[in-house]
C-alpha cells in the first residue's frame, strides 16, 4: 500500500467522535478554506441526527462484523473485510464520478433503496471541487 496515502486511509476509517475540523499547516485551523471558527459550533452537533447519521454505516458494519466473529470465528469478518478493501479500491479519482458497483454488490446496497439513494445525489451536487486540491487531500499532502 502506498504509504503516502496512509493518512487519507486513517481519515476514512477512524470513527468521528466530534465534528471534523479542517486542519491546515502547523495544526492550526485553516481560516482561508473553512472560514472563521466558533468553539460552540465545533463542540455541539447542530442536529440530533447529525452525529448518528455520520457514523451510521460504520457502526452497522462494526456490529455486523462482531456478530459474525462471535458466530463463525475470526476468519469470517477478516475475509469479508479483505473483499471490501479490494472492492473499495476500484474507483476513479476523487473529483470524478465512480459507480462503486463492486462495493455496492458486496454490501447488498444494490437490492435496497434508502434515503442515501434519493437525497443529495453526489452526481447532481451543485458544488464541484478543484481537482488538484481534491487529489492533494486524498493523498494526504494537504
Amino acid at each position, binding site marked *: 500500500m502506498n504509504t503516502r496515502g496512509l493518512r487519507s486511509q486513517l481519515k476514512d476509517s477512524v470513527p468521528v467522535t466530534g465534528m471534523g475540523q479542517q486542519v491546515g499547516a502547523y495544526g492550526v485551523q485553516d481560516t482561508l478554506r473553512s472560514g472563521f471558527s466558533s468553539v460552540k459550533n465545533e463542540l455541539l452537533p447542530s442536529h440530533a441526527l447529525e452525529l448518528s447519521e455520520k457514523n451510521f454505516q460504520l457502526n452497522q458494519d462494526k456490529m455486523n462484523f462482531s456478530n459474525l466473529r462471535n458466530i463463525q470465528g475470526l476468519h469470517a469478518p477478516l475475509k469479508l473485510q479483505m473483499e471490501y478493501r479490494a472492492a473499495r479500491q476500484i474507483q476513479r479519482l476523487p473529483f470524478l464520478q465512480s459507480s462503486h458497483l463492486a462495493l455496492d454488490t458486496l454490501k447488498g446496497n444494490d437490492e*435496497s*433503496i434508502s434515503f442515501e439513494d434519493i437525497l*443529495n445525489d453526489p452526481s447532481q*451536487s451543485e458544488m*464541484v471541487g478543484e*481537482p488538484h486540491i481534491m487529489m492533494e487531500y486524498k493523498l494526504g499532502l494537504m
Partner: protein
Amino acid sequence: MALSNVVETPASGFNFENVCRNVALEGLLQGGQTKAPKPMKTGTTIAGVLCKNGVVLGADTRATSGEVVADKMCAKIHYISPNIYCCGAGTAADTEKTTDLLSSNLTIFSMNSGRNPRVVMAVNILQDMLFRYRGQIGASLILGGVDCTGNHLYKVGPYGSIDNVPYLAMGSGDLAALGILEDRFKADMEMEEAKELVRDAIHSGIMSDLGSGNNIDICVITKQGVDYIRPYQESEYKDKRQRRYKYRPGTTSILTEKIVPLELEVVQETVQRMDTA
C-alpha cells in the same frame, strides 16, 4: 465552477448544513410578525379492522397546513404491494416518501424472489427505517395486508414502535374512532359489517376532530384482490365551486351577420422546384 474549499464529494443522504441557520431564523422570526411556514400535516383519522376474509382500512381525506385545509381530496391509503396497503398519518411528505421507499424495496424483493412480500417484512423494514431517524420522520402508519400466513394488521409509530391488534385507529381523530371500534368490534366479522364499522369510526373522527374531514376512503384487501373505494362516502358539505370559468360556445346569441369579401389580385407568381428524391 470549481470551488477550492471543497475537498471531498459531499455525502449522500440527509444534509444538516442549514440547521444552525434555521435555528437562528426561528429566533429572529419569533419577535417579528412572520412565522416560519408549517409543513403540511395530514391531521387525520385512519382506522383498520381485521375481519373474517381479509382486512378493511379506512381514512378521511383532509390535509391541513396550520389552520388552513390544504387538500380536500388527499389520498391517505398508499399502495405498498399488490397485497399490502398502508394508511398514513402525520407529516404528509414523510408518509408519502416513507411508503414510496417501502414499496420500492418490496418490489425489488418480489422481483428477486418471485413472491408477494409478507406483511411482517414490510413492518420490519419500516421499523428499522423509522428508528434509525429517531422519530424525526413524523410518519404514523397502519399497515394491512393478506399474505400466505393470513390476514395481518399492524401499527407503526414514528419512533419505530409496533402494535399488532385486530382493530386500530391513528391520527388526531384516533380517540373518537377508537371509541366506536371498542364498542362494536367483534372477532371474525363479516365483510360488510366490518366496512360499516370502519365507516362509522372514520365518521366519528370527522365529526369530533378539526383536523379530519371531507370524504371517507375505504380499502378492502382479501385473498382474491383489493377493492380501493375512493370515495366510499362523500361529505354532505361539498362546495359548489366551478373548476372552469370558460363560457360554452353558443352562450352569447348572434344578432346580425355581415360578410365582406376581401378582393386580392395576383401581382407576381414564381415557381420553385422542390427536390424530392
